[in-house]
């Protein structure tokens, strides 16, 4: 492919090439200067043989578009990374996703992970919590505590973080439809621990657009849902400045079967939609953009994945700067968390999943992720056992401390293959942006099933490739084993659901019912007046209104969303 070579573009005169070389040398000098002032971790930055490894490698004779396309880490357009020395300064956050059963059980798993060297918490909630129902709601039957922890009220949130200093640990919460409600519970829990909101660090996923596109856990229709997201962004910018109020997520888009280009394009398009919604509220782009964070998948195609992260950074930087007029460089930087691909794991020979996860994790790190979750080998069968989750964490630790990949930034930058893939993914994403614009924007695309159809098509094509044996999956359509060894299965206690339902019923009889009615009424009125709901949600949570009651109050105002099923 000719464009892979980055040869001098036709029509450029020798003086332009010379000017580009000059600019490169100046940028390099600037970068070296920044590097000299950067802190480094206490680690050996040498090969095992003892040779030094440089923080960054650059071409001797860069092409004229080097600065425009690649530049230097920590500099626009951030293709090579958002920090000058990346993991030499600080390793990525090792953030394993955990949550099951009751708040008390998940609290114990959190403490186990922290004792074992995990550096951030990540919370999985059960389906009723994700959809805004209490544990004793008839629709919650069979679902309580199964795919995550059941949180009905502030009482459960306090138990979940009991003995965990919220001022010191950074917490991620995978919650979307009711994110504002759960965040309010978290903020009040922190207040009760005596931690000022300004000190809190963490992330709520809070990306409702990808729910309609892929993950399918919503409560309200798109418009009021996006309004709630903007409420959290606005409140965060003013009161919780170190918090990431939204983690714009491609992970689930990919898990639903999208291609890498679709994951990239749809995720960034969602991001642009939130930016535009915030601008429409009257917020200054530089007041909130730096707190928007991203969440990508790490699938099996090693080089395509690395290229995807690099393209994402470059596209985001350019759009934020040129299209939305952000002036603060922090608004241009795309920071992201990565999770290895759950959908790449196989039920057959589950131990092989350790190997898949390790390669995927390597791609994420070579792509410059800020935070990483490595899936446990048994996740395709059940929630992870303690043994499996420990091995998943060890996978990251081996990568960080033994392989040397954390020694330099963007080690594959300049690879003909990786640069060509990066350019191609960028071009495919731009083509999708144009298509989305044609359909009338992200919300219109959701409502008429554009995204859902694109993803379903890609999922079906992939499945056919596997069925026809053109794409080999070890253990599934190649190298099968006659006898599969039984694996240990993690099970949720059967009486848990009854206990949790009982707990929320007891809470309702114990608390000040009058105060709950009053706060819910205030919340409803504020929703009708389109005010920022965060303060009202915190007040409702404080008097122990349950998640289901709060969601119901908002359902009365906003209604519920129903999807037109697309196959």
């Amino acid at each position: 492919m000719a464009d892979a070579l980055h040869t001098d573009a036709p029509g450029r005169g020798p003086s332009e090439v010379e000017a580009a070389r000059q600019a490169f040398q100046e940028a390099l000098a600037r970068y070296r200067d920044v590097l000299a002032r950067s802190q480094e971790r206490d680690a050996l930055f040498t090969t095992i043989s003892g040779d030094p490894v440089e923080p960054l490698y650059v071409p001797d004779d860069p092409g004229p578009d080097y600065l425009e396309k690649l530049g230097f880490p920590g500099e626009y357009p951030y293709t090579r990374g958002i920090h000058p020395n990346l993991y030499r300064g600080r390793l990525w956050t090792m953030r394993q996703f955990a949550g099951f059963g009751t708040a008390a059980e998940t609290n114990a798993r959190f403490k186990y992970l922290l004792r074992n060297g995990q550096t951030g918490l990540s919370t999985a909630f059960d389906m009723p919590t994700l959809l805004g129902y209490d544990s004793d709601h008839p629709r919650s039957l069979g679902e309580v505590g199964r795919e995550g922890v059941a949180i009905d009220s502030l009482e459960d949130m306090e138990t979940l973080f009991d003995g965990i200093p919220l001022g010191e640990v950074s917490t991620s919460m995978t919650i979307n439809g009711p994110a504002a409600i759960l965040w309010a519970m978290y903020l009040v829990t922190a207040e009760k621990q005596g931690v000022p909101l300004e000190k809190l660090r963490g992330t709520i996923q809070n990306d409702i657009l990808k729910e309609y596109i892929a993950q399918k856990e919503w409560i309200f229709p798109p418009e009021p849902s996006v309004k709630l997201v903007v409420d959290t962004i606005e409140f965060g910018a003013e009161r919780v400045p170190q918090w990431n109020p939204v983690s714009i997520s491609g992970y689930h888009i990919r898990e639903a079967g999208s291609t890498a280009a679709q994951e990239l394009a749809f995720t960034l398009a969602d991001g642009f939609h939130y930016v535009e919604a915030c601008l429409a509220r009257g917020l200054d782009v530089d007041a909130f953009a730096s707190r928007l964070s991203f969440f990508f998948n790490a699938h099996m195609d090693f080089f395509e994945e690395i290229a995807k992260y690099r393209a994402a950074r470059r596209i985001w930087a350019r759009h934020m700067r040129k299209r939305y007029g952000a002036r603060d460089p922090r608004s241009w930087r795309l920071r992201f968390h990565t999770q290895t691909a759950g959908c790449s794991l196989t039920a057959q020979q589950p131990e092989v999943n350790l190997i898949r996860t390790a390669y995927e994790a390597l791609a994420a790190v070579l792509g410059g992720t800020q935070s990483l979750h490595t899936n446990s080998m048994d996740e395709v069968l059940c929630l992870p056992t303690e043994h499996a989750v420990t091995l998943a964490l060890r996978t990251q630790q081996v990568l960080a401390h033994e392989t040397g990949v954390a020694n330099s930034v963007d080690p594959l930058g300049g690879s003909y293959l990786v640069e060509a893939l990066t350019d191609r993914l960028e071009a495919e994403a731009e083509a999708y942006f144009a298509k989305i614009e044609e359909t009338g924007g992200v919300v219109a695309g959701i409502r008429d099933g554009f995204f859902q159809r694109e993803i379903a098509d890609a999922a079906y094509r992939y499945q056919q490739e596997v069925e026809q044996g053109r794409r080999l999956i070890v253990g599934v359509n190649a190298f099968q084993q006659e006898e599969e060894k039984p694996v240990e299965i993690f099970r949720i206690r059967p009486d848990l659901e009854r206990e949790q339902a009982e707990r929320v019923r007891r809470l309702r009889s114990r608390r000040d019912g009058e105060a709950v009615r009053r706060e819910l009424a205030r919340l409803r009125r504020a929703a009708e007046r389109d005010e920022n709901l965060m303060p009202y949600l915190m007040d409702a949570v404080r008097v122990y209104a349950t998640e289901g009651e709060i969601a119901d109050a908002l359902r009365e105002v906003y209604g519920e969303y129903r999807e037109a099923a697309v196959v």
Partner: protein
Amino acid sequence: MSEKIRVLIAKVGMDGHDRGAKVIARGLRDAGMEVIYSGLFQTPESVVQMAIQEDADVIGISILSGAHMTLLPLIREELRRQEAEDIVLVAGGTIPAEDVSALKREGVVEEVFTPGQSMEEMVRWIRQRVEASPASYARG
């Protein structure tokens, strides 16, 4: 020629993971079956109701949330109550082997298709099962 086999692919409960359901729906359609997809968040009652209305030969429940041991027996119960037990009930998704045996042993579902199983096997199983069933002869 007998009429096409009719299959209702359904999601019950709160689980929104619909990739598998959609891939299966298309695969069965490509194999020449008449496929109805329920959309998300169905109840056991609404699934059975839909199957009866659509005159389905087979209900395929796709489930990944771990709620299978609660929801699948409720669907079986509803089929019994509606006297619609001629409809074949199968399931697919993340269901541990132990649970698969229990569900089949207790007559809740006739078959469970787990991750990695091929479309071809599924199509063959459904064809054999429906064509062997007296209910479908009566209708065909």
